[in-house]
């Protein structure tokens, strides 16, 4: 092979590598756009509160759980799966580090018996309790649970464990349906403390999804019954 031929081949190969890199980046960007990552709901700091462990930033989050996807981030049409149960207004959450976070969840859905009664117990909250319609409780019988809010993550060095799990009691079947198409919700409130920054996954552990065992569809899809929780600064 002559020198000009060799140079031409090397240039051609280099060009192919550049084109390949552009394709990878392009496909990656396209997938990111198509995948429609849920927006993030930020819990804004609202002052400082004195606690048993010292002063902590106070913040609050308000979420809802619906028996369908018509009222959350998927719009009134329900998006691709209007019949799927969902959390709203979004499933990607942000809370401040070193904070006392108060979470209020309005559950509009009926009960589905837990596969594992373990998730009927309140864990990791301040005082080990949640308030259901204003009444403190340490757990809910498995048959009365509609959904759970359970934070998971394997420990990362420097990232504290955030072992929070609360059951959300279902709305009784006899509850009348309101003008918005949903029954009056069960209101669950709980508090937990955050430590240093970290990233966590949370999801529902009640078999409220589709297919075998109730763990398909929304149970494994972000934007429905699972999402992320970022603990951060700023």
């Amino acid at each position, binding site marked *: *092979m002559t020198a000009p031929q*060799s140079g031409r*081949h*090397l240039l*051609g*190969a280099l*060009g*192919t*590598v550049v*084109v*390949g*890199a552009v*394709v*990878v980046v392009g*496909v*990656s960007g396209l*997938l*990111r756009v198509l*995948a429609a*990552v849920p927006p993030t709901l930020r819990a804004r700091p609202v002052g400082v509160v004195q606690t048993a462990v010292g002063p902590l930033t106070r913040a609050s989050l308000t979420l809802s759980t619906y028996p369908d996807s018509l009222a959350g981030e998927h719009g009134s049409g329900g998006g691709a799966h209007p019949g799927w149960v969902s959390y709203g207004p979004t499933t990607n959450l942000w809370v401040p580090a070193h904070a006392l976070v108060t979470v209020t969840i309005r559950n509009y859905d009926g009960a589905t018996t837990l596969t594992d009664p373990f998730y009927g117990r309140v864990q990791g909250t301040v005082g080990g309790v949640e308030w259901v319609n204003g009444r403190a409780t340490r757990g809910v019988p498995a048959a009365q649970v509609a959904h759970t809010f359970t934070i998971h993550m*394997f*420990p*990362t*060095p*420097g*990232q504290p464990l955030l072992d929070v799990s609360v059951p959300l009691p279902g709305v009784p079947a006899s509850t009348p349906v309101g003008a918005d198409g949903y029954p009056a919700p069960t209101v669950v409130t709980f508090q937990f403390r955050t430590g240093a920054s970290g*990233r966590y996954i949370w999801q529902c552990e009640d078999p409220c*999804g*589709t*297919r*075998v*065992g109730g*763990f*398909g*569809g929304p*149970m*494994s*899809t*972000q934007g429905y019954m699972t999402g992320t929780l970022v603990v951060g600064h700023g």
Partner: protein
Amino acid sequence: MASRWWSQSVLTGVPMGVVTALVAALLTRAIGGPSASDAAICIGFVGWAFGFLGGMGAFRYPRTLLLARPDPTAEEEHQLAVQGGGPWRYFRFTTDHKVVGIQYLVLGLVLFAVGGLAAMLIRLELLRPGAAAFPPATYNTIVGLHGIIMIAGTIIMITGPFGNFVVPIMIGARDMAFPRLNALSFWLLFTAVPVLLCAPFLGGFPTGWTSYAPLADQAPPGMDAFLVTILLFGGSVAVAGANIVTTAITMRAPGMTWTRLPIFVWGAAMTASTLGLMVFPAFMAAMVLLGLDRTLGTSFYVASGGGSAWLYDNLFWLMGHPEVYVIAIPAFAVIMELLPVFSRKPLFGYRTAVASTTAIVGLSVLVWAHHMFVTGWAPQLNGPFMLTTEMISIPTGVVFLVAVGTLWRGRIWLTVPMLFVLSFLWNFVIGGMTGLYLADVPTDYQLHGSLFVTAHFHYTLMGGALMGFFAAFYYWFPKMTGRMLNETLGRIHFWVTQVAFNVTFLAMFYVGLQGMPRRVADYSAQFAAGNFVASIGAFVLGAAMLVFAYNIVSSWLRGQRAPSNPWHAKTLEWQVPTPVPLENFEETPVITSWPYDYGAPEPTPEGAAERAPA
């Protein structure tokens, strides 16, 4: 017989396939109602395959048989093999084994390109913790697509192109035993590709390529696309395997005794294809049961309905581990075929090599449960399965002995194919040795489910088998295309691949030993450094593959014309002209010696023609 250029080609196959798919799906949905959506998807995809094959003219001959019409004339058979000549014959139901070989080669490369793109996306996501390039569900589907595409690609990468193109010529045959089945095997494989690529648009499949139950029972409709893909792919492998084995048994030229059979024919055609024929039905059966679970509400794999996920595990791994050898043995065969050529020495221990590959095949069907040590299934069998798995290292070691014995005191000719032969030996040793830890019950308990496993099987399948494919590709490309691949680009491809591959997967061993689990879209910060190195290595590896792609295209279009026997090899495919004539030989050759009598002190063309036509 087809008279118009576009008839009975992909131009008629695709529209017929799409229409049949839509009709089948809509009918199923109309009959079964909304609850039959999974059934509609499955039946729609099966309809696509039948419609496509019908549009390609694949059913003309079966129809002739069923209607008791006269057999096709010799002229019609000739027309079916030629299909008008020119490039368009590659898009038709052409029966010439050389055309089918090229079709397999190109489709295999396309599969590798798509699977490689998925690999780049995976490493992009894992570049740093919390990268979040994609949502987890998208990541899972990308991992699943990468896995199944690469597994399918590596299964066909040697027996498909070279088994079809080279084996008949190597044994002195004019074509395969069943030319129509040969074309059918390729086009059946072709139908599986769009079905699989539909999966992401149907919600993807979160299971990875292993499609474990009961997760597969719970998965979105993309899982239906996956299971139909496996059924189509399994059908293609069965048809191809039966054809290749029958060809090797019945079509050998006079004098081509079993002990004169080229080692590549032994490995790829006899042992690997037989193994594929035996084990793939288990995977197909697993998918049929999964399909019944998903469409008809059976509970073969659902414990609450009386089923068992262990049933799936067993069916899957009954195929899954032997399948590793369906991939690896053809690569072993390539290595043993090329070593005498580039060492200019007879193959060391020919009969031992045949016996060893046969032993590997026999043992490979007795090891499947080592993948299930941690599942709790039959713990009393952990010991026996550990033993059978470790026993398989004995015949594998013998194959290495054959390779090293052939190299010993040879006049090593370091061509690009030979470089890949040597890299196979290096990488496969690492893959094999690390496999021992996974065969051993106590260490497997620690390493199972970690990236150590991922690194191990990439060392065997990519570092080993894929390097065998590259060796075969550089070796037979001149015969298949009439062009030489560019040597400089070939060496760049080799060195960058070899370095980047080892960087990537040694880093993966490291994070696996640290405890990083596989199949995760995100990971703990403690694994950041290893993953960063693995991702950079993977990107460089991707660049090496693009150099290879450029070399293929530029050489195929404008490369130096290849002489008929550029390697001065002695097997029959190098004794026929390039391009190879339609029926390979003017006269049936008579074989008088085995193909590895390399005794010349240096590579010379004079040593090439050992045998002459009768």
